């Protein structure tokens, strides 16, 4: 099963995915190219430069006044009748959830897609508590049946083909082997409808939270978030503390910009704006709404003079879609919840720098991610920032440090450099490399081109180049 790895295994996992599961690259590339084409079209319809400046500035303002807005949001939520909890770590968040489960005697839960709940590992915890938990986003449902984590922030199952889904649904839901997508979706709808109607707990994340009204904003296309937050008697929303925006009118801008950046829609099909539990004049809705404000490493990122900019992220996935490195493997190889360029720059805050290596290196620094980011996070700069921090902290691999030292010694001695070059061009790297300690990892994962017979210097002197 894929997805059980850690960031430290990135290089091997990425190589393994490309070697053993070539269809993943096909599915992921196809999906990300489609997502990105939609974004390009949707950005062309608006003054996207101005929208992005605005969004960057609102988030920067928010983050530099975060304490004030957190207090304002808390007070407003309480006034709305919601219950507010603060979680410093994932363990704290899970303990809070356990308390709610015990208090209400929760037996079954429906879950709306939430990356934070993946980060916190909510599902295994609920299962341990004896709660029957069901992912309701169609992509997440597919992955839950397969026992896999999401591979993309917006499209969790983009690494799965129609054929994969046909096989899975045939086995688990009894649909015909060659069922059309409509039939498959109808089967999932029928199965999940029962869960929606039976569940006594609904779990969601939060795309944004307006401090002035205490509003949790959620964007989606299927309706499963609306159902998860409307039908069960208790709703628990996990919200990262960086998800705040100052006002509900700011939310109006962010839901549109995020939708355009993520899927190219003017706005997601359904936007839920949740203030609290049902009021007296309302016939249905949850009796209790709990909001869990989660730190889990975010204040660590905030304290970093450069990396704090990553907290502007709206989780649209645009940087994954454009990333030539992400497209090769999808998200599983990265070994944790948030993959791609954004994942590599928030990982050191949430997991710790050592546990995050070598993710900041999983990039060619081509800069495409910074070009598309709707909140203008300087992602390549921050990748370099974490690489530097890793070197300072002595976390760079020994092989890399030694290699660079050796190269530096060579490069300062022209004669030795030429001799070394001549040897390298003639060495049977493909075969010999496998026996060597450092090169073996490299050549096992890659097919190297034939080296040139002459050096660049020689070709220059002979007038070839």
């Amino acid at each position: 099963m894929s997805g059980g790895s850690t960031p430290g295994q990135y290089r091997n996992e990425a190589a393994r995915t490309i070697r053993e599961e070539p269809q993943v690259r096909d599915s992921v590339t196809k999906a990300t190219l489609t997502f990105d084409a939609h974004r390009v079209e949707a950005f062309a319809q608006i003054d996207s430069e101005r929208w992005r400046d605005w969004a960057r500035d609102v988030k920067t303002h928010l983050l530099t006044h975060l304490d004030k807005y957190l207090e304002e949001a808390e007070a407003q939520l309480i006034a709305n009748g919601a219950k507010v909890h603060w979680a410093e770590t994932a363990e704290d968040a899970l303990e809070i959830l356990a308390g709610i489960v015990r208090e209400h005697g929760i037996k079954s839960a429906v879950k709306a897609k939430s990356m934070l709940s993946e980060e916190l590992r909510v599902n295994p915890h609920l299962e341990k508590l004896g709660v029957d938990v069901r992912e309701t986003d169609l992509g997440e449902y597919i992955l839950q049946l397969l026992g896999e984590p999401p591979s993309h922030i917006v499209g969790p199952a983009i690494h799965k083909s129609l054929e994969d889904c046909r096989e899975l649904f045939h086995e688990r839901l009894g649909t015909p082997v060659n069922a059309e997508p409509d039939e498959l979706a109808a089967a999932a709808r029928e199965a999940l409808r029962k869960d929606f109607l039976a569940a006594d707990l609904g779990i969601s994340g939060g795309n944004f939270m307006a401090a002035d009204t205490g509003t949790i904003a959620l964007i989606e296309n299927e309706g499963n978030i609306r159902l998860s937050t409307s039908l069960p008697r208790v709703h628990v929303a996990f919200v990262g503390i960086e998800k705040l925006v100052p006002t509900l009118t700011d939310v109006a801008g962010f839901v549109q910009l995020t939708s355009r950046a993520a899927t190219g829609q003017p706005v997601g099909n359904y936007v839920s704006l949740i203030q609290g539990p049902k009021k007296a004049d309302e016939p249905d809705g949850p009796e209790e709404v709990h909001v869990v404000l989660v730190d889990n490493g975010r204040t660590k990122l905030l304290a970093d003079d450069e990396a704090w900019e990553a907290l502007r992220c709206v989780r649209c996935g645009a940087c994954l879609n454009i990333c030539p490195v992400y497209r090769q493997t999808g998200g599983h190889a990265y070994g944790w919840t948030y993959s791609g360029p954004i994942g590599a720059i928030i990982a050191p805050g949430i997991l710790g720098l050592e546990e995050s290596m070598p993710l900041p290196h999983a990039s060619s620094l081509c800069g495409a991610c910074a070009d598309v980011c709707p909140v203008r996070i300087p992602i390549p700069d921050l990748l370099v920032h974490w690489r530097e921090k890793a070197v300072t902290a002595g976390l760079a691999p020994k092989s890399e440090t030694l290699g660079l030292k050796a190269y530096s010694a060579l490069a300062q001695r022209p004669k030795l450099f030429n001799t070394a070059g001549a040897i390298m061009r003639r060495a049977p790297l493909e075969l010999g490399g496998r026996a060597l300690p450092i090169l073996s990892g490299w050549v096992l994962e890659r097919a190297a081109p034939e080296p040139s017979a002459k050096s660049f210097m020689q070709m220059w002197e002979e007038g070839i180049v």
Partner: protein
Amino acid sequence: MSARDRILGRVREALAERKQEAHPGPFGGWRSEGEDTPAVDRFIQLFEAAGGEVVRFDDDAVAAAWVRDFVSKYDAVSMGRLARWPTAVGAESPELVLKSADPADSDVGVSLAYGAVAETGSLIMTPQDGRRAQLLPPVHVVWVEEKMIFPMLYQALSTLGKDLPSAVGLHSGPSKSADIGQILVKGVHGPGRLIAVLLADKKNST
């Protein structure tokens, strides 16, 4: 010290030396596309592009007759609390009462929208009407008054913001997903058909 105080303490410590930035002001006012299009036309354009269906009526009674006729083709109907308006729809007519069912068992739901948004092509659904009727039946018919179509989303939200219910839903098209092999399917969890019944603004029509 509580978790709350420790988190807020860490935030304040992190921000102690950080330069504070000002809020850039309200979003909007610089749209390049669709500015000159009347709000109702822009709403219809976007709503239909997202797969929604629109019917427009100048006369409430004709609209009500259309809705009554539309829902009568189904076996089980759930009417939102406010959707009985305009009363001419005849929710109490013996035929519809017989077909009246819980939203979970209904073929079609009828609701009244608070209003709509032109720039996003969204219906604004409030919970006073009943959320289940808005979400559970496979077909959803929604009354909207054209005079309640806001050109921009922030205008709608700042109007609503004065008296917010427990939850507001913006519905901008039928439920859809591309999670199965990136192929678009409709009606995954929410209604697969979403029909907006627009009622003309009497003051503006001649």
